């Protein structure tokens, strides 16, 4: 079983819930558990929020691109922006680190992505944008598509 979807939308905070709900609807065909669904919704929300706040500094003219690929019980997600990029990725992924403490950011976004997914990768080029790649194997309902 394999499937694919791609969605691009304006970098508006209203679209954070649109993004996580859309991805959740797409992966529903893998029959995930409630916990797996919550994990996916959370990491999508984190990555899209990063794109909006850090990638575009809330300039709503930017766009965010999400691609999602399903293969058997594996989900692969990329969340891409074409904004500022990250100068120092190692620093950015430290727990509690935030470049915007004045905005009450907890600095936990990347830590959550790392913990909720099996694989986590950031590719970032300053002034060109950031791509976050996330992968996870759904453990439950193994027999559903045999």
């Amino acid at each position, binding site marked *: 079983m394999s499937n694919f979807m791609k969605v691009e939308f304006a970098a508006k*905070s209203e679209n954070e819930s649109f993004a996580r709900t859309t991805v959740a609807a797409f992966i529903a065909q893998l029959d995930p558990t409630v916990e797996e669904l919550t994990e996916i919704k959370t990491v999508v929300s984190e990555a899209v*929020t990063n794109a909006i706040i850090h990638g575009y500094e809330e300039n709503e003219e930017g766009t965010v691109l999400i691609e999602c690929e399903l293969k058997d019980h594996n989900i692969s997600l990329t969340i891409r922006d074409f904004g500022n990029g990250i100068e120092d990725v190692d620093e950015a992924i430290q727990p509690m680190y935030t470049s915007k403490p004045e905005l009450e*950011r*907890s600095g936990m976004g990347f830590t959550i992505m790392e913990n909720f997914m099996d694989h986590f990768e950031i590719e970032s080029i300053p002034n060109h944008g950031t791509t976050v790649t996330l992968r996870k194997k759904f453990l439950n309902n193994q027999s559903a598509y045999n």
Partner: protein
Amino acid sequence: MALSLTYDFEQKQDVLLVRLTGELDHHEAEQLKNDWQSFLQNGMTKHVVVNLENLYFMDSSGLGVFLGRYKEVKEIGGEMVICSINYDVQRLFELSGLFKIIDTAENEAVALARLGVAL
């Protein structure tokens, strides 16, 4: 979107009770923060109880809002108790270490009693 965030504030003696319903993300966080801050500055509030019984979704933006209000409550010499935390939100609290900082209770009655509100 269909499921956004709604919330209400209730004053119980010197305790501000905040009940959140729906989904708390970055989009909802700013308005919540502003409304919450205006209640904290009403002169009647010393402590805060946050009831998350009907909060179905939260991401790290919510952690930021709670941590921000926790600091403000501490500044006025008060305590903050978060109650009725569901499993998903609990995982975020554990990951972030928020449990080590902020007091939690199983339900609203227990939280209010801990802060001296006679029911």
